[in-house]
């Protein structure tokens, strides 16, 4: 199959790469850009482990062709920290024990980020609904929901400073 050259903007940086046209974004991120923080667990849109942000919206990178991501702003888990400072959601996941095996964590954090960017004041039920496409087999979700609620508080306080 013929390779195709595309430009992807990932975590604020442009990458010129050549790919097979049928490659999904998850594989391009992991294999071509070595951004292995994005996980693949089911390849069919059922688990959320591959969630990234595309133009600010949560997006399943296992179902998205890389060519469709051209011209969009892609953010992965590796791009969340700013100037070496972890994002409040990352900090909250660490401090609340919301991470066990960690395989769901990148996708969870990206879904949580999409939620909080849109709704800075969610109720726990809204958090659960927003994360319902992200499976976690380890935690029972309790500490994940706690972490997202705490991050929401933290982000509000940060803004009011």
């Amino acid at each position, binding site marked *: 199959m013929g390779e195709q050259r595309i430009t992807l903007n990932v975590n604020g940086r442009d990458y010129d790469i050549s790919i097979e046209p049928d490659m999904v974004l998850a594989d391009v991120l992991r294999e071509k850009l070595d951004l292995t923080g994005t*996980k693949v667990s089911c390849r069919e849109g059922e688990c959320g482990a591959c969630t990234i942000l595309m133009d600010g919206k949560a997006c399943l990178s296992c179902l998205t062709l890389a060519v469709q991501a051209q011209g969009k702003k892609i953010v992965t888990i590796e791009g969340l920290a700013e100037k070496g400072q972890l994002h409040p959601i990352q900090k909250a996941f660490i401090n609340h024990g919301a991470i066990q*095996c960690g395989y769901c964590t990148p996708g969870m954090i990206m879904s949580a980020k999409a939620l909080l960017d849109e709704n800075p004041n969610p109720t726990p039920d809204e958090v659960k609904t927003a994360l319902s*496409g992200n499976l976690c087999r380890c935690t029972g979700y309790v500490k994940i929901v706690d972490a997202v609620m705490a991050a929401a508080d933290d982000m509000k306080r940060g803004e009011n400073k």
Partner: protein
Amino acid sequence: MSAMFKLVGKPAPRHDAWAKAKGDQLYSDDFTMPGMLYGKALRSKYPAAIIKSIDTSKAKALPGVHAVLTAKDVPMNVEISKFGQMKDVGGGFEGLYKVLADGKVRFKGEAIALVAAETEELAEEACRLIEVDYEVQPGVFDPEEALKPGAYIVSSDEGENESNLIMESHINKGDVEKAFAEADVIVENEYRVPPVDHAYLETEGGVAWVDDNGVITMRVGTQVLEHYRTIAKVMGLPQNKVRNMSVPMGGGFGGKEDITVETFLCLLANATKRPVKMVWSREESLEVHSKRHPEILRYKTAATKDGKITAQKVEIIMDGGGYKLLTGWVQMYSTVNAPGCYNIPNVKVDSYSALTNNTPSSANRGFGCCQANFASELQMDELAAKLGMSPLEIRLKNCLRNGDEICTGFIPQGHIALEEIAKKAWEGLEATGPKPDYVDGKKIGRGLAIGMMSYGRLTFMHDSSRVGLRIELDGSVTLRAGVPDLGGGQASVLCQIVAEELGIPMEKVHPYIMDTHLTPLCGTTTATRQLYMSGNAALVTVKVLKERIIKKAAEMLDAKPEEVQLINEKACLINNPLKSVPFVQVVGALSNDGVELFHEGQFNAPFTDVPNLHDMKGRIWPDFTYSAHAVEVAVDEETGKFEVRKVVLCYDVGKAINKNSCEGQLEGGCVYNQGYVTENMGWENGITKARSFAEYLIPTAVDAPEIETIMVESGGGLGPYGAKGVGEPADNSIAPAIVNAIYDAVGVRLKEMPVTPEKLLKAIQEKNK
């Protein structure tokens, strides 16, 4: 005492939390190597067949294919794998399996051939080009059918080719027949529990290569590093020529306890002399790796009018699937836990396991115990209903207390908190308010179940663990431990213990884990044993170094060793903390004196002999962890759908060394086995219908209930600081509590899981007829 802990008991973030939050943690699928090939397994289309011939010539001729292997290329194809234990247990316990099928295919998806090729697509293409000539066999898919004379025989191998029986085991205590003759009430029921997939988010995978010293090296996600020994045997190599450098797992739950990709990878890497990667697809993982044992459990219980149980008779039939794997071990758990966590004078248990042509059964969090717990806890409520007693009353009347013996006659040494935790869980749920009849048109019900499950392995396996420590000259510490970390914080807690004892911050202890050439062997991350075994090993080890440090510090402070403590990176006098010397200075002084600043220590569990399986007696495990779940459900009487609204769970954890980790295990286990009630593999004549997460539905954030976690810390465990293990006991009594709550809501008790809306609706309609 507890007031003096600096780190133990605190909710400390684990050492690996930062890397995981940043996406930096590497898992089995995150490595690539120069010249790496991709491995694939060709899997059987049928659950039962005779392989007449295999033609690999077309696959081998495909450009880009570097190896095609079948059973005849495996130096030792029939393998008895040990699971990390140092002792040959014998007696049919070790897990028998074949690396690649030959002769007979024993389950659908069994690997028949292996391919290594330059791309994944090429490897798949090569698999399609392999021609297998099958003679399809009728097979047998029901364990009871499999045990009947004249049944289809699953195996063609010596020792297994006369009957499908894997093992039988029996317990006889007192005189059950006499007790039944004298009973006021007798309750008799049959329960059925289904297979369960571990559904870890990370499927099985890894990379293997031959290093420049000719050592076959692998990086895989495994719960058992010690499988390198079995792999060496399969390859016909000495054990020191196989190295397992494992990586943290994206979940294990028992599913990475048996060998998964390891032998395939090593065979392919050895054949091609190139690095090879293999990662199973979700579909492959759902279909081929081992599942929780499906079981049929028949209970007959005798009791007095006032609810004292006088006899329990249980028959268990276990479906082992196509290979034995860990069935023998799992059977011990089902058998001994069959009577439940109760003090019953007369007990008879007869259990049988059978080979069938289903996907093999093996370890799954709960390991035979949660099957028995499900049945015995439904049986308790059946008895309570018959006697007009409450679920709490009947349990308090019969539960084990300190000094009581279990059905094998063994008296547990650890504290038994069943009475306290059963009350706390139930009262905790009641404290959330009186039970409403209906909420949003759905009928509300509340249920209770309690349980016990061991931590630490079967004592006849003679379990041990080792941890190594080295104090660096700047006062930091390197901890080396072959502890597979599956996400429970197995490695981090060891650092916490060492930091606590040396009086240094946790960040100063760096763990190097999971490398069989370099780390002391800790044994398996299974059987809820790491905190108990390796935690104690860490304690044994650090205490040796601590003694050296305190002795030197005492010299430097002009005091007696017993007057000195280590705290805040100092050695100081207990009675005069201002008189101190920095930790790092003591280390320097020891180094100048030529005193060893390293140590490797070992902890041994209690050892016993293999029990007589016809009359099991005595100690089977080191100790137990006790659980209670009180649950509120809402049932839609029109559709048969139900939701779990609230759970109050209470455990005696002994000592919560890392509060967050401990709670996280209890919450995670609760939701894991909430799934036991509804998850559906959809097995039909050896075929798995649930082949994706769209069909195998595990609980999501929306399904998970509101959970209140109550931890009792009795200090009465055998782990470090009196801790008990919680990883597997965490999922023990939730499923029966849910089913009992459904009964409370709508008056029907489904005795067979999964509880599907169709089954529940049918039962509700029948009852209302």
